[in-house]
């Protein structure tokens, strides 16, 4: 099995602040991999570093066997797409859904746009009726579906998901998680998913990495986590916290 994403000794530095301190990661092809940690642990920075949105100080990133340089080429962005946390901020407020979905097609010079837009909307469960609406006419869950459609329209092989459901209500979250699982199965996608919620990560991912202060605390399989077979105190704390409030 080849690695879809391989990261070796990745350092990200903002001015003098080291957001990532030598992180190693390997995500296999077709795998769903989770990153967990509290705010400031560097989990989102890791995703952003892969896409070129964070300043990489040193270390190597390889995607589908190709080493990434300072800039990413078009083929990279066709292969790797990202879904952001806040669907209220990640969709252009003055563009219709149609226009939003045209954009990536125009950038990559893809001609069968019509078909692709219809298919993408259909795939995320929105239907044609939503095509000429604006983001503000949609609910949070519908917006996140548009964001997923936009990511899928280029037929990528890797999806980077940065807390894709934390801005959504619990019942809508379930729908979006189900949708993500379904498209992954159908398109055989590789997921790299960030969340602060252990329950979501164990639900969605086969393996995960726990992060704290820009470093990897430990790497686990979902079943290890479910069985509480963890070796670090920090992970144990996270597990306890995710079980809810207990009166002492």
């Amino acid at each position: 099995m080849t690695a879809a994403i391989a990261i070796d000794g990745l350092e990200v530095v903002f001015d003098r602040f080291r957001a990532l301190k030598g992180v190693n990661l390997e995500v296999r092809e077709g795998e769903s991999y989770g990153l967990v940690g509290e705010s400031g642990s560097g989990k989102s920075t890791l995703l952003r570093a892969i896409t070129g949105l964070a300043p990489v100080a040193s270390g190597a990133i390889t995607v589908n066997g190709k080493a990434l340089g300072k800039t990413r080429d078009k083929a990279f962005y066709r292969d790797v797409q990202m879904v952001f946390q806040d669907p209220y901020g990640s969709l252009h407020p003055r563009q219709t859904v149609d226009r939003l979905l045209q954009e990536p097609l125009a950038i990559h010079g893809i001609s069968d746009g019509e078909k692709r837009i219809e298919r993408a909307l259909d795939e995320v469960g929105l239907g044609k009726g939503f095509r000429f609406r604006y983001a503000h006419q949609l609910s949070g869950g519908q917006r996140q579906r548009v964001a997923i459609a936009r990511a899928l329209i280029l037929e990528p092989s890797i999806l980077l998901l940065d807390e894709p459901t934390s801005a959504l209500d619990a019942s809508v979250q379930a729908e979006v998680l189900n949708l993500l699982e379904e498209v992954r199965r159908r398109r055989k996608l590789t997921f790299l998913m960030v969340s602060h919620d252990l329950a979501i990560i164990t639900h969605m991912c086969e393996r995960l990495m726990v992060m704290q202060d820009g470093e990897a605390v430990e790497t686990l399989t979902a079943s290890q986590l479910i069985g509480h077979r963890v070796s670090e105190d920090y992970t144990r704390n996270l597990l306890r916290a995710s079980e809810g409030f207990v009166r002492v």
Partner: protein
Amino acid sequence: MNGNRDAQPKGTLLEVDDLRVTFPTRTGLVQAVRGVSFSLGRERLGIVGESGSGKSQTGRAIMGLTPPQAEVSAKKLSFDGIDLLSISPRQRRALRGNRIAMILQDPKYSLDPVMTIGRQIVETLRTHEKVSKAEARERALEMLRAVQIRDPARVFDLHPHEVSGGMGQRAMIAMMLIAGPELMIADEPTSALDVTVQLDVLNILDRLVAERGMGLIFISHDLRLVSSFCDRVVVMYAGKVVEQLKASELRDARHPYTRGLLNCMPRIGFERHPLPVLDRKPEWAA
């Protein structure tokens, strides 16, 4: 559905009967809260619902923080025998922060960014009580200690941007508790915090509420968290109460919305693919 409303423990602090909050919009009137009724003793009551269910507007109406263009009406809205809807704004102001206090979601936005934490706490105290500056400072430091801030003298002189979210929320709790309120409304007090910090803040809140014998209204979208923290839970949907029940009896919830909400969250150790989703029925909102 008020099937299992209990006899009020230790006297009633707050009575809400048929509370309605109406907002005028360009397309007509929108009722955010549509006939909510419950009563509260010196206990912990959770109000749970998703966005748009009217849970926050219910809390705000009790606090008297409904925006001026909106209209609040109720058959009864009384706090310790005082009719909140008929008293003057001045009397209402005297209650607010003194006998009824409110903790908001995000300390980043709810604390004054240009005022030190200590001064904000002292301001609350001196608005409601005649105390000397030196005594106010002493009491503020004591309060900061009570919310488990290790170095209160240092935090006293810091501005909100200099502290973490968890610390900011503790300062907020200190500020709200310093005047010794009898009723505390906490609107998503821990949603902006990391899970590990969340539990610390809840522990502090839990201890202080128990020690001081306050009534607490805990507003949240997280049904599981609320049921582990509160004595009773009110579940809201589309501006109405769909179910009231004891937190310990949550497992026996009857309303399909409550059950659906409990069911749709992923849980560690319970594999379900796909997750059950809510099938919203129009009659729930009727």
